[in-house]
């Protein structure tokens, strides 16, 4: 086996390979961080915001020889167990305080010390997951930088980094030596096993409690929830009743046994005295004290992270356990060692902090044979690296036993009682946004290309075609039948509406990405890549001047999203509510498009000139109603306009080919209406959407919904369905509201109330 140094030297010599690996890493990370991009850009649509890259992965790993790792792992193991003893004391008998090892005034001054946890029944274990940042000194010895005991972050990032670096490993080590690199892929199973055995419950319900998409580590939360197979939940998903914690699901309240919290101690419970936000769950801390739910890590464990208290821990641990901690804390003035790295195209040495992760379960403490390396800039304090450069951490030569994969005993995601209400709500809107974005994009695409191919059409017949198409666009982007017809010169109105439609696509994409980011664990892994591309399209479309091919990209990416949605997602209730959203929106789209193509639209009635003698006022009114090109007109069907509008209608619904196959004639109104409204074999038709909705409401056993769908489906039965389109549209909107009221009625955010003394 080659030494770590030799391996790195070989790698560092190949500048081109490094460059290639850097680009690859950048790409993979950008793709997997779609959630981050959404978050950062959510409120800045239309502005030129360069993509925020939270970190870059250095293609050069930190390589640790097995012997060194064995020493570090023993250190982490010892430290985790010692810290549990310390926590049990700080919230229990407080011997360390009585003895003066930890000054009481310093402890009680700490924002991290939770008074409510003092004397409360201790958790079954204080630190299920634990991490410690260490750094190598120039002389090769190791020091502790800080403990991570509250919500240790980085397991998910380590897995992600490794997935990128696995290719580097194959290249660098060669296939025969690849087994020299210790695997970290079994670590999540250790974590899952540790969490599920924290309670005596036989089939425990474990949730990953996140602060939501606003949390800087949300990408990790989402990926970990998926890897672990736990529901990702947020504050509003949870409720405390009768001393227990419950999850609001589509099936009602479902009891929670273990909370893998990614939310800090300080915000867990807004009614706790010093709570600083409303992100948590009211009453959670008291429920924990009453044994109604297990928190991992225990409430209060974050106290270890207080930098003002950290200097006291070594003495306290030694006093409590009789054994000194193996590793000393880093002291000012100690000379840090460096490791090679690749930054900005150059090979350079820098110091790196390494975060080592451990999981404590019933079978002991397992230390991940890897970790998160973070590069320090020259003047950085090791606690706070400013360089956003991560390094994968390789443990070589371990030949460690294959990680024990614990058979998961997991809640199935396809039970009504397992889907958080909020997730179903978000998926419903994801479905609606995706469908609407696609409809607007396709309609705009068809109209824009006709306008390009046949310029005379735009001005022919007094601009009737242009005016009709502008109206169609307005209906499809306005998401309502009751929109005013466009005013002004028809050709200008059409161009205006095309730009507005493009912006509306960006807007719907933004909604799709924002809601989609909150339910990442219900979407396939590949979806994040599609989201990342849709985010680019959204940015390109948001100024309304995008060329047609951007619309084409968007349409293709939306098709990819829907394909993944249908083919790579379990068809359980979560999927069904998302699909209900799509079908509801598709029904509204097809009804809206049919109506906008065939309705006789009243001419706009502008305000009369306030002063008819004023030429400027008269000109304003004339311009408003398009008088420059002719008299005030209604949008009336004429043969050529009619024909073209129907073709657009069919094309936007991907039904033109189907029409041509069936009907040898020119496009005519009655068969068009039949194909789009009543032909259940056409997947775009209203009837087909109704069939799917009926399946969904049956599957979730919603009898009231079943009747509502039956009524909706019958709305167009009988002769002259075109006359009843507007009524059917109202029916679909009412059904959408019924879904929301029945299934998603969620409370708004809590607010803190406090009295005042005088």
């Amino acid at each position, binding site marked *: 086996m080659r030494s770590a140094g030799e391996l790195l030297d070989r790698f560092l010599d190949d500048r081109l390979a490094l460059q290639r690996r850097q680009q690859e890493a950048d790409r993979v990370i950008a793709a997997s961080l779609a959630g981050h991009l959404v978050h950062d850009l959510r409120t800045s649509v239309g502005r030129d915001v360069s993509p925020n890259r939270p970190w870059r992965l250095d293609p050069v790993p930190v390589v640790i020889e097995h012997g060194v790792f064995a020493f570090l792992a023993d250190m982490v193991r010892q430290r985790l167990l010692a810290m549990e003893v310390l926590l049990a004391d700080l919230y229990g008998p*407080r011997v360390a*305080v*009585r*003895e*003066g090892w930890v*000054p*009481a*005034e*310093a*402890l*009680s*001054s700490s*924002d991290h010390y939770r*008074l*409510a946890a*003092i*004397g409360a029944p201790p958790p079954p274990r204080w630190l299920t997951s634990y991490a410690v940042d260490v750094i190598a000194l120039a002389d090769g010895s190791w020091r502790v930088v800080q403990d991570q005991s509250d919500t240790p972050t980085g397991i998910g990032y380590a897995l992600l980094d490794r997935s990128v670096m696995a290719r580097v490993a194959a290249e660098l080590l060669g296939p025969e030596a690849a087994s020299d690199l210790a695997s970290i892929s079994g670590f999540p199973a250790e974590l899952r096993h540790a969490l599920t055995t924290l309670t005596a419950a036989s089939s425990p319900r474990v949730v990953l409690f996140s602060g939501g998409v606003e949390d800087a580590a949300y990408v990790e939360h989402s990926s970990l929830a998926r890897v672990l197979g736990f529901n990702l939940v947020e504050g509003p998903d949870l*409720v*405390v*009743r*009768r001393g227990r914690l419950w999850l609001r699901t589509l099936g009602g309240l479902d009891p929670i046994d273990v909370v893998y919290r990614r939310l800090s101690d300080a915000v867990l419970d*807004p*009614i706790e*005295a*010093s709570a600083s936000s*409303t992100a948590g769950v*009211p*009453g959670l801390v*008291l429920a924990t004290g009453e044994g109604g739910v297990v928190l991992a890590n225990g409430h209060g464990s974050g106290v270890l992270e207080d930098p003002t208290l950290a200097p006291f821990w070594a003495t306290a641990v030694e006093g409590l356990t009789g054994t000194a901690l193996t590793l000393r804390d880093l002291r000012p003035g100690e000379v840090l060692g460096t490791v090679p790295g690749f930054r900005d195209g150059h090979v350079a040495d820098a110091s790196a902090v390494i975060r080592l992760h451990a999981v404590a379960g019933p079978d002991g403490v397992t230390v991940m044979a890897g970790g998160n390396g973070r590069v320090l800039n020259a003047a950085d304090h090791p606690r706070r690296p400013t360089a956003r450069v991560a390094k994968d951490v390789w443990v070589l030569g371990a030949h460690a036993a294959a990680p024990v994969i614990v058979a998961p005993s997991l809640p199935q995601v396809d039970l009504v009682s397992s889907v958080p209400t909020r997730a179903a709500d978000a998926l419903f809107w994801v479905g609606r946004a995706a469908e609407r974005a696609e409809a607007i994009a396709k309609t705009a695409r068809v109209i824009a290309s006709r306008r390009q191919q046949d310029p005379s059409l735009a001005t022919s017949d007094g601009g009737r075609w242009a005016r009709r198409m502008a109206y169609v666009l307005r209906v499809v982007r306005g998401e309502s039948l009751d929109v005013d017809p466009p005013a002004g010169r028809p050709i200008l109105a059409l161009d205006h509406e095309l730009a507005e439609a493009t912006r509306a696509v960006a807007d719907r994409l933004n909604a799709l990405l924002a809601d989609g980011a909150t339910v990442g664990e219900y979407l396939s892994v590949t979806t994040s890549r599609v989201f990342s591309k849709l985010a680019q399209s959204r940015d390109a479309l948001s100024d309304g001047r995008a060329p047609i091919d951007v619309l084409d990209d968007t349409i293709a990416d939306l098709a990819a999203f829907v394909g993944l949605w249908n083919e790579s997602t379990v068809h359980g209730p979560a999927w069904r509510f998302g699909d209900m959203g799509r079908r509801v929106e598709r029904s509204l789209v097809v009804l809206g498009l049919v109506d906008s193509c065939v309705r006789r639209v009243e001419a706009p009635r502008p305000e009369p000139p306030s002063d008819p003698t004023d030429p400027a006022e008269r000109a304003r009114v004339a311009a408003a109603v398009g008088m420059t090109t002719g008299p005030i007109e209604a949008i009336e069907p004429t043969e050529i306009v009619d024909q073209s509008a129907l073709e657009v209608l069919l094309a936007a619904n991907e039904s033109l080919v189907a029409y041509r196959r069936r009907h040898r004639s020119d496009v005519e109104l009655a068969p068009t209406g039949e194909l789009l409204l009543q032909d259940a074999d056409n997947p775009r038709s209203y009837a087909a959407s109704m069939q799917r909705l009926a399946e969904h409401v049956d599957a979730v056993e919603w009898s009231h919904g079943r009747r509502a769908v039956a009524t909706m489906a019958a709305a167009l039965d009988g002769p002259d369905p075109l006359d009843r389109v507007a009524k059917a549209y109202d029916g679909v909107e009412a059904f959408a509201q019924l879904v929301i009221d029945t299934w998603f009625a969620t*409370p*708004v*955010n*809590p*607010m*803190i*109330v*406090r*009295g*005042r*003394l*005088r």
Partner: protein
Amino acid sequence: MIRNDGPVVRRPVEAIHYRVSHRTTYRYAQPMTDGYTLAYLLPRPTALQVVERAEVEVSPEPDERAEHIDVFGNRMLQIGVHRAHTRLELHATSDVVVEPGVVTARGEPWEIVAMRIGELRGGDALAVRPFAGSSPYVPLGDHFAALRGLAEQAFGPHRPVVDGARDLCHLIHETFEYDPAFTEVSTPLSVVLDGRRGVCQDFAHLATACLRSLGLAARYVSGYIETDPPPGHERVIGADASHAWCSVWVPQQGWIDFDPTNDRLPTHRHVTVAWGRDYGDVTPVRGVVIGPAVEQALSVEVDVQRLPADAPTIT
């Protein structure tokens, strides 16, 4: 608490029997679907105070209700109303017998006391030292020099600690203006320091902060005070208010209360409810309601009534 400028009762007094009524009402413009409330309204027994009866009536009838003892030994009431409600009322009534405390000792020089606090071990370390540091409403770090400067005006070198605390209360009373319009519940200490005005809660925090800046241990005490009507006026029921003061630890003596708002040592006219590091630990009523973000109105009525010595206790 309105500043009480009535004559201080100087004649020796027997134990006095008070009946306290404290009604807190929240009204919401639209129904709230869920409400969680924590209340520090049940008086704790103390060396000088016997609590004969204390109860809190809650309306609407709560779905959950539990009493806990917190880390400082206070009685904490936890209330859950898990159905739509536009109003929440907590009406606390208690019968309390207060014995006048007599402070005779002047204590050791404050420097000695501060040193002794750092040396406390065992149970004393747990009971006293947590009150010698910063806390959320009493942050020392940011204004240490100003607080220490103020404290040193009262605590000259070697000043006995009780005398110093008395002078500090006098100083705050004389140089800070009582002004309910100036501060609100979340007004930071720095604003009180700069504006030199505030209410009892602010002055209790200020005194606590000054004492802690010297290395002394000081508690924030929440409770009530018996007030006198303005001369020539009838006593108005419900016109009293919650009150707050502070308490300083003196070796061999224990905790001695001081009321900077009224510049006096609380004796028999103060009823103690709870104590903590600051207001945040013992907020009389706080909580979280879940519902639409609409206006909420809070009204508080407090009445501290002195009962005749032979009045029967309501059971």
